[in-house]
Each structure stands twice: as structure tokens, then as C-alpha cells.
């Protein structure tokens, strides 16, 4: 059974793919850079190329990598938490809370004040949403209560977002801005966004040491506890890390769907379910997936990143399921 015996080449291949995509994303665009010009730009010998690379493309690439890793890592953790391959990082209202926060900030006109207002509003919305889910579910131990509270809050926050959107139908500009944000995208990302998303690196690094415990938890909480896992503590860490990862990703890129669901699933099919192997694979693979989708979004023009991730992710996922069935 190939599902349990992972090829040792999957991680190096994923890393190579990511590296290739990083180079391609820096080179390809409205202002294409030949290998020679790319080098000249990187070494600051060509001022125009250097500006394109360091001011425009590199921040975008880094944000894409961080967002992809965060969403995919967050999805992996939620799937282990809920013992369900269909769980996604937005399950507990983090994404919809982030969306509601950002949408309110745009609608109220605060977002024009500074670049960082929107991400900060999104992070606040995301944290408030998760906090509310935890308070509503109260008996922290029951995953079912948590899930139901998340579903209810997601619906509520979705309604808030829709309400704001529908009440600005006459203000074309703000409405367009809201829609633009809701569909997720990486246009005009700056170093400010990169720094804002930087805590993703440390949160992602903390996932790996939890890998073995997540293996045990994903086969049952009581079983894990009886085998020596401090389940309460582990779950606390898992929730905190997913919240940070998803909130920051939503803050800097808007709502980008499907990454957290599909990437962990794909790698579980390819490399088996062990989390110490899956954590690095999902981080690298998620980054590569979002980067590839962003590259495509740029090349096609006018298509939002969130649309592309779902457009590619959906059929690919179905194909993979059929092939493995």
C-alpha cells in the first residue's frame, strides 16, 4: 500500500517546485526579466529591475509563500483536531471573523487612512470570532460543541458581511473594494504586509514538535490521553496556532479558500497520515500552491486569487479522489 510508505522524494521535490515557482514569480510579469536582467536586478546593478524585484515582486512572493503555508498548516491542524479530513482552517470562524472585520473597516472608510488598518481590523475580527466560539462552546473538551458553535458563528458573520455589502450597493467604489478583498488577492503587497505576516513563520515552526502528538490525537482523544498525551494542553496549542496562522493569512491576503482543505488532503494521499512528515510537506506545498495560483492569476489578468485556488483546487481534488478510490 503506497499510502503508508511515503517516498522520500516528496519533500525535496516539493521544495524544488517551490524554489522554481519563486524564481518564476519574480521573473514573470508585465515587465518580464530575462535571467541576466534578473541577476542584475538582484545584485542592484540594474536599478529598474531592482525596483521591480525588491519593491513589487519580492514582497508579493513572500506574502504568497507565507499565506499558503499558513492556510495549509492551519488546515492540517484542524483536520487532526476534528479527526476529519474535511475540516478546514476557517471552521471556527477565524476567516469569516477576519472578513467581517475587514469589510466593516472598508465600509466605514477607515481602511483609506493607512495600509495597515485593513489587516489589523481583520486580525481583530478573527481573534474576536475565535474567542466567541470558545466562550460559546465553553466546555472546551467537546469537539462537537466547538464545531457547532463555529458553524453558527460562521453563519452569523457571513450575514454581517453580506449585510454590509448589500447596504453599499450605491457606493460603487467601496463595494468594489469589499468584493475585491473578499475574493482574496495579493496585488500591491508591500514590505509592510510581509512584516505583518512574519509571525506565521514562528507559528508554523511550532507545528512540527506537535506532530507526533497530533498522530495520536487524530485516532481519538481518550485513546491519546491514555497513551500519555496531555490532550487538553495539546488542543489548546493547536487552536492557538491555527488561529494565529489563519488570522494573519486572512489579514494580508483576504479570503483565500480551499488551500487549507486540499493541500493537507493531497499530501496525506501521497505521503501517508503521519504528521511529522505532513507538517513540512503541507507548509512547503501550501506555499507552492498559492504561489502557482497567484502566478496564474497575474498571467490571466482580472481573476482573483481566491477564485483561482478554488477553480484549480476543486477539479484537481476530485480527480485525485477518483484516482485513489
Amino acid at each position, binding site marked *: 500500500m503506497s499510502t*503508508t510508505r511515503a517516498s522520500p522524494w516528496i519533500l525535496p521535490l516539493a521544495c524544488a517546485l517551490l524554489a522554481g515557482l519563486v524564481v518564476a514569480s519574480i521573473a514573470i510579469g508585465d515587465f518580464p526579466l530575462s535571467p541576466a536582467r534578473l541577476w542584475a536586478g538582484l545584485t542592484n546593478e540594474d536599478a529598474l529591475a531592482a525596483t521591480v524585484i525588491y519593491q513589487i515582486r519580492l514582497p508579493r512572493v513572500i506574502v504568497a509563500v507565507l499565506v499558503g503555508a499558513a492556510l495549509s498548516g492551519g488546515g492540517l491542524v484542524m483536520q487532526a483536531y476534528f479527526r476529519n479530513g474535511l475540516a478546514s482552517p476557517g471552521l471556527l470562524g477565524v476567516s469569516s471573523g477576519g472578513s467581517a472585520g475587514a469589510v466593516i473597516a472598508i465600509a466605514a472608510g477607515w481602511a483609506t487612512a493607512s495600509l495597515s488598518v485593513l489587516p489589523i481590523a481583520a486580525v481583530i475580527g478573527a481573534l474576536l470570532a475565535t474567542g466567541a466560539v470558545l466562550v460559546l462552546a465553553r466546555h472546551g473538551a467537546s469537539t462537537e460543541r466547538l464545531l457547532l458553535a463555529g458553524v453558527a458563528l460562521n453563519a452569523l458573520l457571513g450575514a454581517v458581511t453580506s449585510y454590509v455589502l448589500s447596504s453599499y450597493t450605491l457606493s460603487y467604489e467601496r463595494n468594489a473594494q469589499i468584493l475585491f478583498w473578499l475574493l482574496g488577492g495579493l496585488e500591491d503587497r508591500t514590505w509592510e504586509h510581509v512584516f505583518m505576516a512574519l509571525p506565521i513563520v514562528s507559528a508554523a515552526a511550532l507545528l512540527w514538535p506537535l506532530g507526533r502528538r497530533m498522530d495520536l490525537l*487524530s485516532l481519538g482523544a*481518550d485513546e491519546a490521553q491514555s497513551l500519555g498525551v496531555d490532550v487538553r494542553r495539546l488542543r489548546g496549542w493547536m487552536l492557538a496556532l491555527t488561529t494565529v496562522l489563519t488570522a494573519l493569512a486572512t489579514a494580508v491576503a483576504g479570503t483565500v479558500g480551499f488551500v487549507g482543505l486540499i493541500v493537507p488532503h493531497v499530501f496525506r494521499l501521497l505521503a501517508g497520515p503521519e504528521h511529522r512528515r505532513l507538517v513540512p510537506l503541507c507548509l512547503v506545498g501550501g506555499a507552492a500552491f498559492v504561489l502557482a495560483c497567484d502566478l496564474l492569476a497575474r498571467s490571466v489578468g482580472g481573476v482573483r486569487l481566491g477564485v483561482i485556488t478554488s477553480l484549480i483546487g476543486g477539479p484537481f481534488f476530485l480527480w485525485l479522489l477518483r484516482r485513489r478510490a
Partner: protein
Amino acid sequence: MVASPTSLNALELQRVSVAQRLRDVSLNLSHGCLAGLIGPNGSGKSTLLQAAAGLLPAEGEVRWAGRPMLKIPVMERGRMATWVPQEARFEFGFSVRSVVAQGRFAHGDDERGVDAALERFDLAGLAQRPVNQLSGGERHRVLLARAVATEAPLQLWDEPLAQLDPRHALDVVALGRELASSGKTVLLSLHDLRVAHGLDFVVVLAGGQLRAAGKPIDVLTPSLLRDVFGVQLRTGPGMILELP
């Protein structure tokens, strides 16, 4: 009611209650005892096993070798007591071997005894198979193999025989006896009264309360069986199954 098979107490339950499921159960089991837990459906057998493993918040106290179970650090508890659930549900396709190896988590994942446990449960040939593709009985054997791999001195098994074929069921009882004779305490819930009759000790629950505990020959009387299970005991010729 306190019942004790021998003097040296390994597992002690003192007036343990769990809301609406278990009331005031006190029980002592010694080292090296193979004990059966019987009772009608819903009598609290699973709850008692979980409380004994320290997995449920319970009133009263559970002690292992004199120490309150809940005060023992989780990792250390993982080496001392192991619990096998009644249902073997696996969402993800971990290999059989890796699930059994989880039994060594509290020992720093040293993999000791994993292969022997696989052998013991006829799982060596299935070692690389994903657990979620196994039959119900095979899954249960995986969980039991994991429990044995922990080498925990307290083994709590919830209906380990329910899903097994006759040979594997007899083998699990034989294994329980082996573990007990090496000094471990094994408490397993079961419905087969004939099997219960062959154990060192039986604990009878009904409606969340302890009805009787002691040697099978003293406990499994016609009047108790009629009271608790509503069945009539009749001895006579029957079919007896044994391991060859």
C-alpha cells in the same frame, strides 16, 4: 461494598461516582489479577473502565499502587495504565505497525516490543496495511496490540472479545492470563458469562452500582444472574471451545 481478591492492592476505587452513570463504586484489584467486568447494557461498565484509567472526571478517588491516578503526570500515567475502547474507529490511514508503535509514545517512542505485539495478534502480515481498511475484528486486534505494547501494569479493555472470532477471542483471554501471571492487573468488560466464569475475579455492575465482586464461583450464582440479567442458569452438557 468493598471487595478484594488478595491483600496487595494495585487498583483501588473508592466511592467513585460519575454523574448519572456510576454510583458509589468501591473496588480493589490486586497485582497479577485477571478480572472480568460484567453487567447488562448501560450498567456502567465502560464508564467504570474510563474512570479507572483517569479519563473521566469522577467523584471519589481512583488510586494505582496507592497513588491518586489523577495526580500522576499524564505521560507517566501513559506508562502505567492503558485503556482500549469498545469501538475502533480510524479516520486516517495510519499503518497497522505505526498504530501499534503509538503504544510506545510514553516511553519516548522506543519501538520496544512492537514487533512482538504484532506477532502476538497475528498482525505481522498486515503491518503495512492502513488501519482504516481493516475489518472490525482486525482493528480491535490492532488496539489490543497497542495496549500490550505499552507494557502498562494496568490493562483496561472495554469489550475486547465482542468483535473477535472464537480463536482470537480465546487467545485474548489467554493473553490476559499471561499478563496477569507476569504481575499485571487486567480488567476487561465482557458479556460471555462462560468466559467470565474462567477468570480470577468478576465484578458485576447493574444500574451504575456494584452488585457483587469476587471469585466467579462465589459470584455467578443462579440468583444473581436472574436478578441482574434476567436469565435462568442451567448447567449441563454443552459445547466447550479451547485453544489447541
